[in-house]
């Protein structure tokens, strides 16, 4: 996971140096870099528990109750991610088959970005599942895994 983050950050640093040199490829490549940050950063943000939630009730519960509820809300989370993953996969496969490009002056291939989107959903799901297992263990035994 941290390897990905390092890669993302490397992209960010690269981005800044690109900024002072306007070329045909700069705009698109920085957009791609930012896209990668959002997509791949999602799973890491989940790990760090930084996705906003409404903790009006949630914040008042005991850690054990939070863990139990988190295991239940894992179901809608899975529904969203898995369905999106399935659809994104078809979307990506099509793009790979066509060797789709962005149709701009620079005209880079677009399918690696779509692969990144699929990958990011896979990572998110893995991270979500890892969290769920940890929560389940905590809910059952009262000890952190």
């Amino acid at each position, binding site marked *: 996971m941290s390897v990905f*983050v390092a890669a*993302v*950050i490397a992209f*960010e*640093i690269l*981005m*800044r140096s690109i*900024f*002072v040199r306007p070329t045909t490829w700069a*705009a698109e490549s*920085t*957009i*791609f870099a*930012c*896209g990668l*940050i*959002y*997509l791949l*950063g*999602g799973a*890491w*943000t*989940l790990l*760090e528990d*930084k*996705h*906003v*939630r*409404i*903790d*009006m*009730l*949630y914040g008042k*519960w005991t850690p054990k109750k*939070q863990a139990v*509820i*988190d295991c*239940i*809300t894992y179901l*809608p*989370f899975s*529904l*969203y*991610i898995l*369905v*999106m993953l*399935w*659809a*994104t996969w*078809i*979307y990506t496969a099509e793009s790979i088959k066509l060797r789709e490009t962005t149709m701009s002056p620079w005209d880079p291939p677009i399918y690696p*970005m*779509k692969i990144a*989107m699929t990958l990011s959903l896979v990572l998110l799901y893995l991270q979500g599942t890892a969290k769920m297992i940890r929560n389940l263990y905590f809910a059952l035994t009262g000890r952190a895994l």
Partner: protein
Amino acid sequence: MSIELISILIVVSMLFLMALGLPLAWTIGAVAVALTLYMFEPGVLMMLVARVFDMSLNYTLMAVPLFVLMAAILQRSGVAEDLFSAVHVWAGGLRGGLAIGTIIANAIMASMVGIIGAEIVTFGLIALPQMLARNYDDKLALGSIAAGGGLATLIPPSVVFIVYGMIAGCSVGELFLAGVLPGLILAAMFIGYVIWHCWRHPEAAPPASLEERNISLVQKLTLQKKLIAPISLATGVLGSMYLGIATPSEAAGVGVLGAIVTAVINRRFNWVVLRDSCYETVKISAMLSWLFFAAQTIIGAYTLAGGTTFVQNSLKAMNLGPWGTIIFMQIIWVFLGCFLDWVGILFLTVPLFLPIVLGMGFDNVWFGVVFCMNMHIAYLSPPFAPSAFYMKSVSPPHITMMQIYIATLPYLWLTFLATILVTAIPWLSLWLPELLLRH
């Protein structure tokens, strides 16, 4: 199933999942996917995926991580300390001078930083200990920082405006300009309140000690040198945008560079600062953009199901008239503001409200400023008041949440007043963009 029933089901299931503490992004996404699977064939999912994908490569969205990074670096660069010391030497003899200085420094900082959290945390660490050390009333000290930090949303650059501009499809540059005047008005109101409060309760803000006041003019002017870097940074970023040299996204990139230069000048730049700033940026922008993605899915699915037309028709059927509708929308915002933060409110309501508002002939940019003012209220209104939470995170332990809520109350009422002003007089927000950009 009729669209009425579906709409109710969507709202109920969203509220239910949110109450269970499922992060907002997954809540919205799960409801969107369930809706799509139930109403349409799976092919529609492809459309949702395409919407999400387009969003991830959106050029305007790029400004978000860059401005966040700029704020994160500036927060660690010592600029705020410089600003604070440069401003408050002038106000030393005045009663409440420190509180006034805090608000002014906040306003200047707001022209470089677009995130409320960054402002409140920074000034909470710098200005709060100084005010408490000088026996300022807790209420005055806490309120001026928590409320002054909120100016970051109105004074450009502001992340709220960028995100609104993307959803509403209007120029981020115009939004930024439109926010300047309301932001200054609000700052002036806050300062006015502090002066009035100190005049009524002189014991709340003891003046500076004599030796502190006896700084020679030369020394005061030397302190002003520290202002050069931050102010040129702010003018560089905003100026390049308004002169048409750079788009907001490019200006943000220049700003990041400028923030690094400033940090280097202050000898605060090192690997840890850069790393922590980058980490923070990735987390905030990933959080925001996954919310974007989820919002794209629900908006797509709900529009296809006929939901947008339904909401529009029912709002029209209420027969409130144009201004009645605007006021009604704001009441909804203020109400939601007690429980949600601006991200949630923006994604849930603006896509539904905007077509109606534009249909009635109102201005896109003006509506954005009105939205922003309402979010200002949302930041301060308990029980879910992000400003107060940020404040609490940097306050000494003896200060309770309740004290902070009470301290921000007068500023909350002032913000209400300013919101009414901005709503009633569109000229306040539209004059600057018209003067500079719309000829």
